[in-house]
């Protein structure tokens, strides 16, 4: 996992990539904790700036943990520190690697299930969905680059494993392909999706976790159950990733 190696330049890039992708779950978390939209945006932004500045990743057991829970843990620690000195001005001194789109975040936040989910649960769920969103976006981008946008649009229904034979012929007609060619295309898109999904997930894992375990956990996270692996006490970082 490239981001775990603190001396590598790739590490910063990888980390930047991760942060850019997964800022929204953290935003949702801090928002659910009770802060206002602006405060949340500020906090999240400042947190990331800090993260990218200082070598947080050198924390001892980074290798062992899941990035997802690690991120939440240090975010919590950061928040509890910040609570002691509430300052509204932006930090980072100009080293703004990326910025958070507050409006977009707020709009998405309004769609969150608003019943009694704890901030942690919300964060986990958001993480899983963000990951999936990201994979789908990458897949779509790939196909668009190859000028196969419409094909992707029609075939993505089959990514969930459904196999509607009647729809096959209909879609083949729409795309002006033969049914057998369509089946092959669907097979390929599924394969590529699985590769991308595997890639994305393994990026957030250390060496001891398996992709399957993480997928299983993400499935339960979407439903809001089963919080097995979250470290709730910020002081216990690294003990059980």
């Amino acid at each position, binding site marked *: 996992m490239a981001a775990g190696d603190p001396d590598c330049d790739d590490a910063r890039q990888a980390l930047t990539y991760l942060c850019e992708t997964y800022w929204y779950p953290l935003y949702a978390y801090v928002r659910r904790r009770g802060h206002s939209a602006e405060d949340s945006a500020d906090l999240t932004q400042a947190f990331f700036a800090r993260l990218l500045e200082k070598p947080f990743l050198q924390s001892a057991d980074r290798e062992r943990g899941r990035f997802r829970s690690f991120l939440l843990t240090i975010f919590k620690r950061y928040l509890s520190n910040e609570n002691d000195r509430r300052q509204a001005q932006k930090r980072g001194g100009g080293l703004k690697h990326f910025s958070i789109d507050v409006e977009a975040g707020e709009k998405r936040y309004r769609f969150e299930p608003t019943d009694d989910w704890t901030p942690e649960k919300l964060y986990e769920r958001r993480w*899983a969905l963000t990951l999936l969103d990201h994979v789908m976006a990458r897949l779509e981008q790939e196909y668009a680059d190859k000028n196969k946008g419409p094909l992707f649009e029609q075939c*993505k*229904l089959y*990514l*969930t*494993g459904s196999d509607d*034979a009647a729809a096959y012929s209909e879609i083949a007609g729409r795309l002006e392909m033969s049914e057998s060619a369509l089946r092959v295309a669907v097979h390929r898109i599924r394969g590529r999706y699985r590769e991308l999904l595997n890639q994305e997930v393994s990026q957030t894992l250390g060496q001891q976790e398996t*992709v399957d375990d993480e997928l299983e956990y993400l499935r339960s996270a979407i*439903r809001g159950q089963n919080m097995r692996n979250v470290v709730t006490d910020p002081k216990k970082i690294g003990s059980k990733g």
Partner: protein
Amino acid sequence: MIDLTDCPVCGCELLPDSPAGLCPDCLLKQGFSDRSRAAAPGDGSAFAQTTPQPGRFIPPEPEHLAAHFSNLEILERIGHGGMGAVYKARQIKLDRPVALKIMRPESSDDPTFAERFNREARTLARLNHPNIVAVHDFGDVTISQTEAEDGKPCILYYFVMEYIDGANLRQLIQTADIQQEQALAIIPQVCDALQYAHDENVVHRDIKPENILVDKLGRVKIADFGLAKLAAPSPEDFTLTGTHQVMGTPSYMAPEQMSGSRLVDHRADIYSLGVVFYEMLTGELPMGHFEPPSKKVAIDGRLDEIVLRSLASEPERRYQQVSEISSQVNVVRGNAAYSQPASFDSVSEHWPGPSTIFENAVDRVVDGVRPSRLRRVLGHAATPSVLAILLSLCGVATLFISWGVNYGGAQYIERRLFQQHSHIHAIDHVCGSAAGVILFALALLLIATGQSRRPPKWRPWVIIGGATAALAFLATYYAEVFARGGWQIDGSFFAALAMGTGLMLVGAWDMRLLLSMNEKSAQQIKRHVPLSDLVAGAGIAHRDGDSALYGADFRRSDTPISHERQQGTPLTAGGRDWVTLTKDQVENDSLPAICIVCGKPASQCANKTFSFSPDWFHLPGKTWADKFSSAFSEREIRVACPVCARHRSYWSRLVWVASTGWLSIVPLGLVGYIVAWEAYPRHGGPQAAGAAIGASVALTLWIGSIIYLASNRIRAESITNDEIRLTRVSPQFARAVREQPTVKEAATPDGA
């Protein structure tokens, strides 16, 4: 891209933030590695393998096959499975349609497979029978699967067989309502084929509905003879006409086959045939402790014996030859015309042969009794009051009109009233007038209160009271007449007596209607569905979990909130309760051992037939289709109700009281007579009056007790295909049923 609200694979609700509009759960599931994918939890049969896996058979495209079969024109693929595929083709030279079935062995370098295949193919080719699918050719080809991304060349074994343009029995069972005649037309043909094969020492070993084909002319053909021996035991199988993968169906295998014993002979086919027969007749598989078919559907009882004997666990107890089955079936068939239940609404006059299977394949036969208009009228709320009014007016009319006729005008009556004539005439007028006035007042009152849907609570009491009063006066008159020795019976008074009695009965009936309506309105008051259930229903919870829960109230989005209420909450009136029993519970006799009437522990059961015909306003059923069909049916279900010793004769007692209670009129009348005689020693009116009053009291008591018993009787509020709802059961019973763990229904093979 279609906008979905529910995931088509797992059925959960899709929220607006779902990635790319797809179900996140299913998307994640796709990411599992192969090994864990097979064991992914919570999938059930919805997670059908559709992605070709490495190592699985990927059927070649027709174009690729054509190169290997020069004498065939390959048209299209009509089925595929884990081990092979079937294509429709045409023999070019002979210009006839054929089916090409190809198979790939589990391990590609199995030397014995070729040997086995050859042997089987030769055996099959030897079988030449109109009811067995013929084999035209067989062999093997070597094919390289470039398109399927497999890359390795492999050997495919193929059969060229007769092409059947029709459907298999599985499809018929699922889509067409197979009637008894049609089943009895199919079975003998299957028996013929099997007998022929057995005579040639060939055992099919895999008789199941997918392997029995019926063509458009109604001819039955059996396919896949002996192939069960060829295929290694793999979980997938494939059919000629089906495209989805079907799990191997051990439910059709004979017990000796399942246990893997070597003593499997032709009688295993008989067992499988019995299973197929049962499924054709009832639509279900015979599992565990199952009911004879005639208990489940309306068919000839003699078929029970045939089916059950075929399904005997020990081969020795079954039929020893298939031909015995077909001869028995033909016996039943020959007499079938006379044993048709009259209520079947058959489409055509003559009984349909197998060719009409296809005509009926789309239509469903609706069974049931036409609605009785009389019953619908009788159930209407306003009918009793209308009847009461009519009767009262008739009574009034007979009294006064006959007076007018007899005595020539109103003036004469007036004169008579103010004259002191003999005692009898005074009584005559007083009684008659009193009775007439009472009846008239009753009629006016009923008219005035109108014919509302919800009858006023006091109406039945008023009817009964008025009738009793009028009857008392009339009876007094009659008593007087008899006491004087005069036997002239004034017809009008007699008619009025009849009217009065009729009114009593109408009042009782009205009372009953009122009571039943009270219960229904009490149910409708409680509409509150707790929020947690709404959320649970609307959430991402698994579908099958909800429907297995006891209590239809909790079914996700199926329940119209208006009629359901909290199960087990006591009614406002009387502390009785209602309970819904599922078909499972009734048929498996799995009701708790608590008296259904009083709630005490019970060890005995009383069989009670509940019948139900819906009235205007309250039709059972959750959807409009259900309600519509239930409106036209009258249903009866026999339930073995647990009762304690005291209530064992509960219902018979009810009937006894109802039918003979009226006899008490005589003794009570006598008592009244004697009482009056003692009180007033001189002969005359008072004794008779006493007798009359005694009789009235008896009558009232009788009617009152009928009403009481009727109102406390357990009755079926609604009967649908899946459940029966009983009202006025004891709350303990209802609670026990509710808390009983439910029996999960057997899963259907192709998944919901």
